Each structure stands twice: as structure tokens, then as C-alpha cells.
């Protein structure tokens, strides 16, 4: 792919590979340099800066400047102040994940194995929500779950909801929103795994007197594991760091750790605290992810 080769001669001499090995050896680094430099400067360096900011003297301010005092006590301080929001983030994201698995697995399975010539159309339907704005879609749930809406009216009529019961501004609304917003990230990798599943394996299982449930547990589920692991991670990471759903569909009682970090950086301008919370969030997510990967035993996803 040397762009320096002479053109127009029509008959370039078939140079032996060794003759160009010097240029060949350098080329990949030249191709990588701009992108890798961008990622290093604007992804790697900022992470180091965030780590440093999390150890700044908490008594400083943006106006007076922060002093680096290696204040490791910032970490226990923020945990003590905000552990409910941490727990809530992982609780809501976990609940949403369970819901998303219950909804997403049948969907991915149906598209991969049962849809026939409708497969592509159904796949477009799965990604269709992402064609429009994340925030506008989330606001649409405000209309659907509204106190004056048809859904709340129906649930009140059949007494599933008290006469003054609400859906909006409850934990239910936040979990529903998280499930909705990140479901496609779960379904797509799951679909990719299930699509490669040979239906003859299921036939063989039933021929050998496996019940439907047994065939699912012993054949379908293990074979869909790579997609399942990738999908749960792609769902869980953004869901636990999300604060848009909690802000738009919940109340401060439903605030997740993202809401706290947002206000630490943008409202209270308490950088050391915000940075410590951010770093803790990343550490907690990494711990969950690696713990999960060890259990699931599919290291190759990474």
C-alpha cells in the first residue's frame, strides 16, 4: 500500500520484498501515528489528569486553584457521602439488565432463527430507535408514562395502580428507560451469536429426547455465551454510568452516581470530589466486568 510507488509507467519492476523492507517497516507506524497520538493525548493523558485531580486538596476551589496534596482521604469521603447513589446505580443497571435479558433474548433468538426472509427488516427495527435523538426518545417516555396518559389510566382502571398512583418520577420509570435505551446493545451481539447456531443441533437434542427447556439450557444457551457476555457488558457499562434517565424520568430520590458527578463538576465545581467519584465509578465497573468475565469464562470477548 505504498503510496509513493511510481504511477503511469504501466510496467513497474516487480521489486523483491526485501528491497523495500525499510519503508515497509516504517509504514504501519506512520499510518498509526495520527490516530494513536490523538487517543493518547485526549484519552490516556486526561485519565491521568483525572487521577491527579482526585487527589487534590479538597479545600481548594476553581478560582483559587487546587494544590496537589495527595489527599487520598477524598475517596473514603465521597464513598461515605454518596454510597446510596453508587448502590442505586448498580441496582438500577442490574435490574434493567435482567429485564433486558428477558426481553432481548427471545427477540434475538426469533430474528436469528425464526425470521427467515424478514431477518434484515427486523434487524433494522432493532436499531431504529438509535436513528433519532437519545434525549428526545427518553422525553417521549415522559408522555407515555404521564399521569394523564392512557397507560396510567388503564393501570388505574384495572387496579394495578392505586387511584393516585404514578409511573413517572418513580424507580420503575428510570429502570424502564434504562432498559429501553440500551436494549439494542444487548440484542445485536446476542443475535450475531445465535445466528451462527446450527438448528440441526437442536433437532439432534430433541431426537435424543431432550425437552425444549433442556435443549435450550444444554445447547442454545452455551453456544450463545460469547454474544451474551458481550451484550451484557455493552448494556451494563453505559447503563450504570447513565444519568439522563434518572434526571428526566425520575426525581432526586432516583438520582444515580452520574447525577452526582455531573453536579460536582458543573454545578458545585468541586473537582477533587467529582474526579474521585468518576475514578471510583470506573474502578467499580472494571471490577464488575472482570469478575463477570472470570465467572463467564469467556476471556476472548476482550
Amino acid at each position, binding site marked *: *500500500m*505504498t*503510496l509513493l*510507488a511510481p*504511477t*503511469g*509507467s504501466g510496467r*513497474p519492476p516487480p521489486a523483491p520484498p526485501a528491497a523495500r523492507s525499510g519503508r515497509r*517497516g516504517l*509504514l*504501519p*507506524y506512520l*499510518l498509526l501515528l*495520527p*490516530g*494513536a497520538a*490523538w*487517543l493518547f493525548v*485526549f*484519552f490516556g493523558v486526561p*485519565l491521568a*489528569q*483525572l487521577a491527579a*485531580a482526585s487527589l487534590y486538596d479538597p479545600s481548594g476551589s476553581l478560582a483559587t486553584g487546587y494544590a496537589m496534596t495527595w489527599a487520598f482521604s477524598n475517596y473514603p469521603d465521597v464513598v461515605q457521602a454518596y454510597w446510596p447513589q453508587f448502590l442505586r446505580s448498580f441496582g438500577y443497571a442490574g435490574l434493567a439488565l435482567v429485564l433486558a435479558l428477558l426481553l432481548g433474548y*427471545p*427477540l434475538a*433468538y426469533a430474528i436469528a432463527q*425464526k425470521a427467515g426472509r424478514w431477518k*434484515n427488516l*427486523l434487524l*433494522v427495527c*432493532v436499531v431504529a*430507535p*438509535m*436513528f*433519532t*435523538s*437519545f*434525549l*428526545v*426518545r427518553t*422525553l*417521549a417516555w*415522559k*408522555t*407515555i408514562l*404521564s399521569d394523564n396518559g392512557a397507560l396510567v389510566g388503564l393501570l388505574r382502571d384495572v387496579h394495578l395502580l392505586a387511584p393516585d398512583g404514578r409511573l413517572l418520577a418513580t424507580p420503575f420509570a428510570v429502570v424502564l428507560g434504562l432498559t*429501553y435505551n440500551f436494549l439494542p446493545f444487548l440484542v445485536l451481539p446476542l443475535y450475531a451469536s445465535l445466528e451462527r447456531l446450527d438448528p440441526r443441533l437442536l433437532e439432534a437434542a430433541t431426537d435424543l429426547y431432550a425437552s*425444549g427447556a433442556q435443549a435450550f439450557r444444554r445447547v442454545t444457551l452455551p453456544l450463545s455465551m460469547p454474544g451474551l457476555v458481550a451484550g451484557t457488558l455493552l448494556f451494563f*457499562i*453505559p447503563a*450504570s*454510568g447513565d444519568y*439522563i434517565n434518572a*434526571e428526566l424520568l425520575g426525581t432526586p430520590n432516583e438520582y444515580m452516581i452520574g447525577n452526582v458527578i455531573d453536579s460536582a463538576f*458543573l454545578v458545585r465545581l468541586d*473537582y477533587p470530589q467529582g474526579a474521585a467519584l*468518576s475514578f471510583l*465509578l*470506573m474502578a467499580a465497573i472494571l471490577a464488575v466486568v472482570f469478575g463477570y468475565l472470570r465467572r463467564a469464562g469467556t476471556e476472548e470477548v476482550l
Partner: protein
Amino acid sequence: MRISRWFADRWVMIVALLVLGYLALPILVVAALSFNRPSSRLSYDFNEFTLDNWRQPCATSDMCDAVVRSVQIGFLVTVVATVLGTLMAFALVRHRFRGRSGINVLIFLPMATPELVMGTSLLALFVSAGVPQGFWTIVIAHVMFCVSFVVVTVKARLAGMDRRLEEAAMDLYASEWQTFRLITLPLVLPGIVAAALLAFSLSFDDFIITNFNAGTTVTFPMYVWGAAQRGIPPQVNVVGTAMFAVALLLVGLSSLRTRARFGLGSDS
């Protein structure tokens, strides 16, 4: 056995269609609300049918300014991220070199890091370096998280390519540059186009990272976020519906193109 399996088949499909309905519902609501005249600024309920919002999408000029700014940012980000990512993909698929696994980690990490962490860490960097935040810091941040997705998309296309086509071109006395221009590039192009579209939509729709790095600059998602507190103008739903229509049109066109190619029998 046979009956229960027949039933099991239908059961899965019925659940799947219900879930698709759940995914589609908010889009239908957004489309419906784009024809709504709300009863008050803070009301989210459907009130009265009107075409006014579509006739005057820019009645609130702030919103249109924000859309234009998001499109500008999206284009800049798409160009830079697509070029950087495509070059990296070529290096990774076509070359053997030392430090490859390190580069792979550098590309993978931004996709696995919560947006919140990337947004706040860039904010920490810009503040400590004294860089004023605004249009250009948004562009820098967006390119950073889009590059990895471009690399992955282009890499997939490159890896699935038949190298013998290029060898055949060389055997027929094409120079390296001719081979690249006439064989490699056309074959990889669908991957590059897909990556560019992905980068544009990621940039256009990003809120979290933008929120920490925008300063006083307002993109469309930032506008919606701010307006959610003051009352949403119904034109926001016009933009949402129009975005959806444009994306659907692009998907439709690309599938028609694929079909036309299959019809001609020249599978690419």
C-alpha cells in the same frame, strides 16, 4: 411434542414482536408530538393537532442554531475520525509490527470506558491546561471517542476482503497505487462509508461527553437537556422525527443498492 414445538415457535415470535413494539413506541410518540400544540410550556401530553411545528421548525431560533452547530461539529468529526481510523485499520490488518497489542488496547479502551469518565477526565485536562471550552473542545472530544468505532468498522471490512483480487491486479501489471485506487479502495469503501455514518450519528447524538466539554456552546442534545427544565418546544419533536426519516431513507437506499447489485450478479 410436535404441537408444543409449534407453539414454542410462535411464542418466541410473539414475544419478539411485542419487544419490537416496545422499542418502536417512543418513536411513534415523537412523531405524534411533532404534530401537537401543547397546552402549556411544561406539558408533555398530546393536546391538539397542528401542522404549525412543521411549517415553522425554527420558531425558536435557539434550537435551529443548536441543530446547525451539531451538524457542523458532526461533519468535522466525521472527516477527522474517518481518516484517522481508516489509516489505523489499514495498519492493523495489512501489516505486522511490534507493539500491535498495545495499539489494540488503546483502541479498545475508549469503547469500554463509561462516557462519564471520558467526559470528566477531558474536562479535568482542559481546565488544568487552561484551554477554554467550546466548539473546538467538543470536536476534539468527539473525534476521540469516534475513532475506535471507525477502526473496528473498517477493520471488519478489510479483514473480510479477498486479497487475491489485489494479487490478480498486480499480476496484470497494475502499480501499487493503481491497485489501491482501482481495487482496494472501491472494495473497502462500503466499510469506510458505514464508519463515517456511524461517526456522524455518534457525534450528533452525544450528550454526556459534550456536556462536560462544551463551555457555553450549545449543541442539539445540550439544547434539549436545557429545555427539559424550562419547557420543551414541540419543534424538538420535528427534529427528532426528521432525523429518524433521514436515517431510514439512508438505510432504505443502501439496501436497494445491495439488491440491485445482487440482481446484476456481481456480488461485492
